[in-house]
């Protein structure tokens, strides 16, 4: 019988110590961990609840960007007006995770560290060029979001390390983002494919910077520089969209499984990238 223990540290240092124990697992919202626990897919000895760490729940504005505590739920994010205005794509992605009930618990950090290839918020964070503040026995480091997941269910975090904060960079004028996913129902499903597009426009509506993240089309969420590049210099005309579609599809390395075939996922990644780009462009003030 596993001797499961529950700890709720109140400082990052305490959390690091607690996570140093063998078989310790951090818990943010718990919406993935508790399902795995019940299904017997994970058998931790200690659950380290991050929610009581000071600052773990909440959003603060810092150096023109946003710092999001690891245990901040999607519902809290969705209520933060400045954050929603600056990063509507990241927040809509976060708010697509599960039901209203799950929104009351699920976090960006948890969604990331669960390391599902289909995590909705991860492509959006990648496209947003978000970073993670990782703390652990070796101290504190800041890494790009796309450096966390290495394979389905696997992360680059060392034993004892956890994500304390997620940082979204400062936002210039005429910039916005969008995230779209395809699911068979209208809610409650895991993405068959997902695409996030983050754009910066100049005063004429020409795209000067573009980042594209794709989900559920590879072992980890992808940053697709070629897809972003396909848009830069354009006003999102048909030709640019076609290039984006092709570049997105070219980056896909999906599997076929119960949720969709590799062929379908690839096609849909292109479709969603195009549609997300159109939404982001409009949000950034570009003429549709």
């Amino acid at each position, binding site marked *: 019988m596993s001797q499961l223990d529950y700890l709720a540290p109140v400082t990052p240092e305490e959390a690091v110590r607690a996570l140093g124990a063998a078989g310790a697992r951090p818990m943010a919202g718990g919406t993935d961990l508790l399902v795995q626990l019940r299904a017997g897919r994970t058998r931790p000895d200690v659950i380290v609840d991050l929610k009581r760490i000071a600052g773990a729940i909440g959003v603060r504005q810092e150096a023109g960007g946003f710092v999001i505590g690891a245990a901040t739920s999607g519902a809290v994010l969705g209520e933060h007006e400045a954050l929603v205005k600056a990063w509507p794509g990241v927040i809509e992605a976060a708010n697509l995770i599960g039901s209203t009930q799950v929104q009351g618990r699920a976090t960006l950090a948890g969604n990331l560290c669960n390391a599902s290839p289909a995590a909705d918020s991860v492509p959006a964070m990648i496209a947003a060029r978000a970073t993670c503040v990782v703390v652990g026995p070796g101290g504190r480091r800041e890494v790009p979001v796309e450096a966390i997941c290495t394979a389905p269910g696997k992360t680059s975090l060392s034993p004892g390390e956890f994500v304390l904060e997620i940082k979204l960079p400062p936002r210039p004028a005429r910039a916005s983002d969008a995230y779209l996913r*395809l699911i068979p129902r209208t*809610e*409650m*499903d895991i993405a068959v494919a997902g695409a996030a597009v983050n754009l910066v426009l100049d005063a004429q509506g020409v795209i000067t910077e573009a980042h594209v993240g794709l989900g559920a089309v590879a072992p980890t969420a992808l940053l697709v520089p070629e897809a972003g590049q396909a848009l830069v210099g354009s006003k999102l005309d048909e030709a640019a969209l076609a290039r984006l579609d092709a570049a997105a599809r070219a980056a896909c390395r999906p599997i076929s499984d119960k949720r969709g075939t590799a062929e*379908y996922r690839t096609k849909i990644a292109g479709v969603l990238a195009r549609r997300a780009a159109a939404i982001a462009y409009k949000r950034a003030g570009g003429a549709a």
Partner: protein
Amino acid sequence: MSDVLDRPDIGHNADDHLKVVGTRPIRPDGADKVTGRAAYGADFNMPGQLVGKVLRSPHAHARIVSIDAKKARALPGVKAVITGADFPNLADEFHEGGEAASNLRDMAMNVIARDKALYHGHAVAAVAAISSAIADEALALINVTYEVLPHVVEVEDAMAEGAPLLHPRMFTEGLEAKPDKPSNVAKRNRIARGDLDAGFAAADVIVEGRYTTKATHQGYIEPHATVASWAADGQCNVWSSSQGQFMVRTYCAKVLGKEISDIRVTPAEIGGGFGGKTVIYLEPLALALSRESGHPVKMIMSREEVFRATGPTSGAVMHVRLGAKKDGTLTAADVELKYQAGAFPGSPVGAGSMTALACYDIPAFRITGYDVVTNTPKVAAYRAPGAPISAFAVESAMDDLALKLGIDPIALREKNAVHNGTKAAYGPTFQNIGYVETLQAIRDTEHYRTPLGPNQGRGMAVGFWFNVGGESTAAVNINEDGTAVVVTGNPDIGGSRASMAMMAAETLGIAVDKVRPMVADTASIGFSMLTGGSRTTFATGMAVVQSAEKVIAELKRRAALIWDVNVDHVMWKDGSAWCLDPAKADEKPLSLEAIAGQSARTGGPITGQTSLNAQGAGPGFAVHLCDVEIDPETGHVTVLRYSAAQDVGKAIHPAYVEGQIQGGVAQGVGWALNEEYIFDRDGHMENAGFLDYRVPVASDLPMIDAILVEVANPRHPFGAKGVGEAPIVPPLAAVANAVRRATGVRMADLPLSPPKIRAVLDAKGG
């Protein structure tokens, strides 16, 4: 006793007189259900109870070589471990619960495997322990040695030459010549009439198709749960959530080799069944664990267990060929149905066959059905068992015929519709049916005339279900203050307490809130068949009305005694006795309350009980209309609008009748679009949870317009027909036909999930 059957003035077409029936009162069990007080299967506990858990086969097909439970038994806190060896071996005994005749021997072996595990999830052993954690640990300590056998999941693979055999001594029934080799085909049935070749030869057009559906689950939100106690004297008490406490009692007695009088079953509130709780899974295991441990045992299935080990309905492969004249008149139909039965015989292919052409008057047809065992969970009844599957095939073909002939799909159905006096394809002659009226109701909707936008399509389909009657008992007891208690033996799944109270109130002539309905345990009311087949409002309702009529006869006798007049001079009207004796013209009417208050002096308590075997349930016809919009780039289907008309005879409580229709539509839409059992190469279900077994959520559906057509059933006191089954029959085809019209492509393989639709659109475009 015919003298007491004194029916008050509540004639069949006397709607004007009805004060209660046809209204929408708040259900009598409502307050408990909105405050969390209603006790469902898992909400009951007994002192000293243990936790029971099941060890399930990790293989789709395997011989059980040995089971070593020594370590599990030795674990502190473990009180019992049982295997198939702890149950008697039963001989074949057919229990005709319905079209899917169950062999009690098969049922016993489905409850717990004996020499072979026949599907992934098949119960192999069970433990009782003092905690859930210890029970889990004990399961892990049971060492089962399996000899893994080749398995087969798909119906046509199971029929193929050389397929792994589930039951080596099973020979196909129903063939002209007795087969010389065993087979996975348990039975072939055939319904035929007329000269098929001549019928097709006379046709101007022929449409043909191959259609497939996947296994789908009833998807009730409440997992199976039970508490069972086997006392030292052998007396057993079972508390469980099921569609019939008497069914549970009968089957537990058989599986355990007990006398029925030793078992008392108390029905919990049931959190949905849809046919899936018409059989037993946990109850005999809990009883055996209680017998072995000497403690009460509580067992609750996880959602995963519900998917892996309880009845879905069949997946199927079907062929349909229809011939028609240019004007749309059908000349011939050839229908072949192959249904997955799961691990034991008993797919609903018989009902699928009988309903397949029930809406059509065709001079020549042949319907051939195959009941095929596969290494998947044994199917259980699911709402109009078998009918939605065959209707999907036939109604898809009918839509193709309408398109090919350029005929309006409703007009095509009307042209070939069955009427009163038509000999149904399944044999009998229809009487008092409301099919054409139901077609007209849909044609008359604003929905049918509303123009569609781009990428949208409108589909229609029809459906049929027999409805049944059967054995029911009901008692009406008058309280000393003139209020009444109605006692029945049928669990209330969808509001039947309300309809029972309403029918009693209407008959007695009192307000419905003066009637308290209750569902009794097996020791407190006479036998009643389970709640299913849309029989309860019809059959149990008939027993309630007859009991109320007996009460009225008694009330009249009491009034006659009070007035000292001949009982022939007493009339019952509006809840009171009226004195008709001209010599006593001054006597004021005596209310039920007044008579009840005198009951001690006039002969004691006033009660009426009726046990009957109701015959003459009127069949139900449903006509559905569905609009969808396709996203051509993703293949995603949105159901925009849905109208469902049905002949319900007479709606006792119209809101719950509408609710039955709306719920059936939702289940059918889920079946059409996203629900399916997905098996991996090892025969394991890959999507055994509500995340990937995708039942419709609130945002997936529009409002569902339920249209009640009332063509009275003269065999029921108020004209009611069963309503619960028919509404799940048309939606599969209605959705598929809408998709066909939106895309221009016939999709014949359910579910119509986005990847399939996109692939079809790509193939069409390319």
